[in-house]
């Protein structure tokens, strides 16, 4: 770890915020020779409220949908100045700012082959504006715009497959990670930073407020998402699946019951089985199940 703190205390994230933890880990892994381009969202708002900034590296706000585009400009400027070899560029945004409104800019950046690490902090909804449903909100999740009600059991659509969309661009490196499994996250960021070209890392970050979980359980909740198969930890290199983190699958109920946003599911066997099916499909598709050793 570097001597100087690159993400300092005093930011106004909620206690136990998974995204603040992940952002800290990402910039520590990337190091001080990094320029960060950040979209509008929780991370930007809680880390840079004038006149205070929690960032110990150069940092610029892009707007909501264009972190990838502003980062492309920063990267181009560094190339022009002959400094790109020694300075990392990270573009970061939430799930909505990446996969919904930000998808165009992300696709352009990936297609053009910029030497940028794009980090998507996936807390599975538009949290900063008050927990609204995004394209990455998981099935059955209770959000304010996909609420549980008299005739609704929450969000009816599956997560948009952003890692696959990124991988389909044929870029050198795509990975998913979780703030619940930190060494894996750190390894992936370091690996990505060492590769030339566009990289995409999607980090699952529990949100105590939006997901309604105990703020002390941020790590545990994140870990359970991985261990149930609901959030596969995978790596793609040049468009091909290259590695997965094996799990000994736990039933999805263990993960769902930790969060208020799924509390309507826990006693609903039909919805529960649909979510188990999502997990089972992931386990099958990515071959996540650890081999039994006898």
């Amino acid at each position: 770890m570097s001597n100087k703190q690159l993400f300092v205390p005093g930011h106004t994230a909620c206690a136990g915020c998974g995204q603040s933890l992940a952002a800290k880990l990402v910039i520590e892994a990337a190091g001080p020779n990094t320029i960060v381009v950040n979209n509008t969202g929780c991370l930007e708002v809680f880390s840079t409220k004038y006149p205070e900034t929690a960032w110990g590296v150069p940092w610029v706000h892009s707007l909501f949908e264009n972190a990838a585009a502003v980062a492309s400009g920063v990267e181009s400027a560094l190339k022009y100045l002959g400094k790109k070899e020694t300075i990392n560029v990270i573009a970061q945004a939430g799930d909505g700012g990446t996969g919904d409104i930000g998808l165009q800019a992300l696709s352009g950046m990936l297609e053009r082959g910029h030497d940028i690490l794009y980090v998507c902090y996936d807390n599975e909804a538009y949290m900063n504006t008050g927990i609204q449903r995004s394209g990455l909100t998981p099935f059955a999740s209770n959000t304010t715009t996909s609420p549980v009600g008299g005739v609704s059991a929450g969000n009816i659509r599956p997560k948009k497959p952003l890692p696959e969309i990124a991988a389909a661009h044929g870029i050198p490196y795509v990975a998913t990670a979780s703030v619940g499994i930190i060494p894996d996250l750190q390894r992936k960021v370091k690996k990505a930073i060492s590769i030339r070209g566009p990289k995409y890392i999607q980090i699952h970050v529990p949100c105590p407020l939006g997901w309604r979980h105990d703020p002390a359980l941020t790590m545990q909740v994140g870990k359970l998402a991985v261990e149930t198969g609901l959030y596969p930890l995978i790596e793609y290199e040049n468009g091909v699946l290259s590695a997965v983190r094996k799990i000994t699958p736990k039933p999805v109920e263990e993960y769902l019951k930790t969060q208020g946003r799924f509390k309507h599911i826990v006693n609903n066997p039909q919805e529960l089985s649909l979510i188990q099916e999502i997990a089972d499909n992931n386990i099958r598709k990515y071959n996540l199940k650890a081999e039994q050793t006898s």
Partner: protein
Amino acid sequence: MFGPLTSKSGTSKNNKTGSWRTESRPKFLKTNCIACKMCRIVCPEGCITGTEKNTYDCDYAFCKGCGNCAMICPKQDITMIKEE
């Protein structure tokens, strides 16, 4: 003429988020600590410091009392106690 525009790095340290704690705070027992560094790594505030065994502690000026450090310590050497 210029108005509010940029900020020097690390100025958020002026904001003492320790005042947020209402329920509990971590107590670092410093008896069974193995210096695994997990508490320091896991703190979303980055306000835990330490080097060798039993030297880990947090800066209560910033600690929000989330409790992740206590949950992650493999030796249960951090407990959450009632906030004063």
